[in-house]
């Protein structure tokens, strides 16, 4: 039979357990009424801040556009999970511009009209950005593009002779074609040892601009231009251009434009019997290029912004988190930059809230735009901060080659000028 001491200990144990259970039940009942998460406009006394996204979510460039949208979504989910900004829950509002400037402008107006929007990530296309910048700037709504590379967007229309910032509300995390074009030219001429280029572009802001900076540097190095042509990106039959390339003495083709044209163009050039590589910029750096070009794309080259993912521990973490979230589409070329663009907005909001006793001021948009200029953090793509023009201070580029059905990095560079 147990002794008296043991009975007393058992009763005490029962009493303590009962008290703890009662306490736990009480706390549960008093838990938050509304989980909030990344949805809902009322999270129990907190504030909802919306980060807009503008990208081609449908149409030819959807692969790149959805990578942008998903990556911003991941950043917002992460900020909410970590309760990164006290009292603030972030949401995203993603709008489709289909790569069209007119749609982009309409989306800009719509985002400006929603007071909860304090920053926008996008767009993808430089031509679309041209139609959106003034709309955002008039509303002092900050815009951070992960992908625009035309230099004029930050450095003004006369950037080659006199750099001048036009829009204080426009920033970008990707570097520009002022560097990307010459970077490609140096690699093609010196490393790939190609001396005669046939240059093609799609006449759009990005493609024509990139082809121009590439060609200028290629010629300065001593290269020759064997021919030039423009293509309509809406057509898929390039037989006329292919014939001209075949009849030229070009040993390389440079294409300024995006993968929906570049893939089939590369395939048709090789099938016509001209076995020379096609080289392009970040607009062709997509898994879809390889699908469209087929095996004929082997040996083609693309430059893209940033260092290869395998070189950045922060990028590997992003890749793992992106996969864990289960997005159907790949993050593609601008995933990391999109995450960093969104995080830059989150950091700017955090600063504004902290400087205003824990809440958003009445002129939140203007304050967030101001704060963006001084944002600095270690992001997915490396250090994220902006210079006096709104350009990224971290300027890295990589050349990729199609090998074994994949893009493989072959050369990386860092611009430190």
């Amino acid at each position: 039979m147990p002794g008296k001491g043991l009975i007393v200990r058992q009763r005490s144990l029962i009493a303590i357990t009962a008290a703890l259970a009662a306490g736990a039940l009480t706390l549960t009942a008093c838990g938050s009424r509304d989980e909030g998460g990344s949805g809902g406009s009322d999270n129990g006394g907190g504030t909802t801040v919306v980060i807009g996204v503008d990208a081609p979510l449908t149409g030819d460039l959807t692969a790149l556009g959805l990578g942008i949208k998903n990556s911003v979504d991941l950043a917002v989910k992460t900020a909410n999970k970590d309760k990164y900004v006290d009292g603030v829950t972030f949401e995203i509002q993603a709008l489709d511009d289909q790569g069209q400037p007119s749609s982009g402008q309409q989306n800009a107006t719509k985002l400006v009209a929603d007071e909860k929007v304090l920053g926008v990530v996008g767009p993808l296309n430089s031509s679309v950005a041209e139609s959106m910048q003034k709309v955002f700037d008039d509303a002092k709504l900050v815009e951070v593009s992960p992908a625009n590379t035309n230099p004029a967007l930050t450095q003004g229309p006369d950037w080659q002779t006199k750099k001048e910032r036009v829009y204080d509300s426009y920033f970008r995390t990707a570097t520009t074609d002022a560097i990307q074009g010459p970077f490609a030219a140096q690699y093609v001429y010196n490393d790939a040892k190609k001396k005669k280029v046939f240059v093609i572009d799609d006449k759009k802001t990005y493609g024509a601009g990139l082809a121009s900076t590439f060609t200028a540097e290629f010629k300065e190095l001593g290269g020759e231009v064997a021919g030039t042509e423009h293509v309509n990106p809406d057509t898929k039959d390039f037989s006329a251009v292919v014939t001209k390339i075949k009849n030229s003495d070009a040993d390389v083709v440079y294409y300024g434009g995006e993968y929906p044209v570049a893939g089939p163009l590369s395939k048709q050039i090789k099938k016509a019997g001209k076995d020379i590589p096609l080289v392009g910029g970040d607009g062709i750096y997509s898994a879809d290029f390889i699908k469209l070009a087929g095996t004929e794309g082997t040996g083609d080259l693309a430059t893209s912004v940033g260092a290869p993912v395998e070189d950045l521990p922060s990028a590997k973490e992003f890749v793992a988190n992106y996969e864990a979230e289960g997005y159907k589409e790949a993050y593609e070329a601008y995933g990391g930059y999109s995450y960093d663009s969104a995080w830059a907005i989150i950091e700017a909001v955090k600063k504004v809230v902290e400087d205003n006793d824990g809440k958003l001021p009445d002129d939140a948009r203007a304050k967030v735009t101001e704060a963006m200029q001084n944002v600095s953090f270690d992001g997915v793509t490396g250090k994220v901060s902006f210079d006096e023009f709104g350009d990224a201070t971290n300027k890295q580029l990589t050349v990729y080659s199609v090998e074994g059905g994949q893009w493989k990095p072959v050369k990386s560079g860092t611009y430190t000028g």
Partner: protein
Amino acid sequence: MSGVGPVEPGEGTRARDTGSGSPPVPGSSRARLAALYTRHRRAVLAGAAAAVLLAGGGYLYATREQEPDPPRVVPSQLVRVTYLGAEHTPPSAPARSFSFAVQLTARPGPAVTVTRISQPYAAVSLSSAPRPPFPAKVGFAHKIVITMHVTNCSQVPGNAGLPFLDVTLRNKFAIQNHSFLLGDRYAQDVSEAVRGLCVNAIKSSPKP
């Protein structure tokens, strides 16, 4: 029964024995072991205690919480090279040479060694001081004086906008030939130097 007390083992009997209920036969190995134990009981017990401690300590060491492996950081992400400006060309340099200085800095991380410095133009050769290989010390601004010798004026670009400086870097994770694009001032200084050295043989015209 009462008052008798517990039964003491009598002569020829023993306390319970796990091997068998009967005492060891004199002269058997069991008897020898038993005698050994009796004579050296303290040493045996001390030895057994030490063995248990060693085994326990070994187990704890093997299952200790280990420091995570350091992240894989490749050398190009740790090193930065920036342009400092033109330098006096060493008197020992061959004719048609020009010099400039760059600064190399390294962030904390897996130690980096600079194993080679080069440039991509076929008509230019390059030497540097210090000469690689040398370690890229963290927190130290290495000044490297680069001397470029133009070997064929008709083959050298006179106005390139983005000349590369290729630096081969090594750490325990990778060997990389990384290009540093030193910017407009570097490009202009190189172009001016080349034009000055190759007045009659430049291929391209000056920028507007």
